[in-house]
């Protein structure tokens, strides 16, 4: 987990911390900075829609990540107002897509 997405190169500390993260294996990088939600890449999930002024059309909300019995991690994104799920996907420990 870190503050800025990989594509953000202007904010202080972004590129150096990306180099550190890149030296180690990980399943999913959770980022914020941008006040929205989205799958930025196969191994990067933006969860910046928790309350700061929303920059896009994605609703305010939160994400639950649950490790399943088969080892995959399942991510579900919910709206804050009615807890309705608006996105769901799963990945294997190496970050590759897993079936739901």
């Amino acid at each position, binding site marked *: 987990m870190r503050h800025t997405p990989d594509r953000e190169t202007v904010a202080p500390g972004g590129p150096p911390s990306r180099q550190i993260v890149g030296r180690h294996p990980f399943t999913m990088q959770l980022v914020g900075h941008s*006040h929205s939600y989205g799958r930025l890449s196969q191994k990067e999930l933006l969860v910046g829609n928790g309350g700061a002024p*929303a920059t*896009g059309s994605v609703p305010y909300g939160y994400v639950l990540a649950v490790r399943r019995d088969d080892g995959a991690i399942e991510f579900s994104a919910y709206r804050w107002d009615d807890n309705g799920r608006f996105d769901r996907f799963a990945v294997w420990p190496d970050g590759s897509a897993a079936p739901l």
Partner: protein
Amino acid sequence: MAGRVRGAAVAVLALAACERGKLLVGSARAVSTGPFVDAAGKMALPYSDARFRVDRDYLYVTLYAADEDIRATDRFVVAIAPLSFEVGPTSSTAPPEVDIDRDVDGSIDDGSDLDEEWLAEVAIPLVLVDTQPARVAISRCDSPKQGGRRCGSFATTLELRP
């Protein structure tokens, strides 16, 4: 100019004070509209708001736009009777007597990245507007990256107490 207008934005933000449907605007603190709403009356996305402060000479209006993809063509439409003008991140149709200062957090006309916000601080000479009552309507439409056209607005009467 920038120093005078910026004072409107850095003042401690008070919750909108309403009395008989009016927004009470004084000189000590800026008051906020709160989030703009969409046609259904729900909080509009992307987020927008406006803040007001007044002194003996000017009505200060700070327009805030959360925006993941800032475009030069983005606009607030501001109607403060009898004035009506548009304010964007780089340009405006306001009369020359209206001073505007801006701050843009992001890249204009570059869809490859994620922008954050832009705001404009507008100083309107009180001699240009009908101050009692001061009817105000502000709207903003935007095109988020997910597609579509999203609009939000706010309208009320300002009771100015310099």
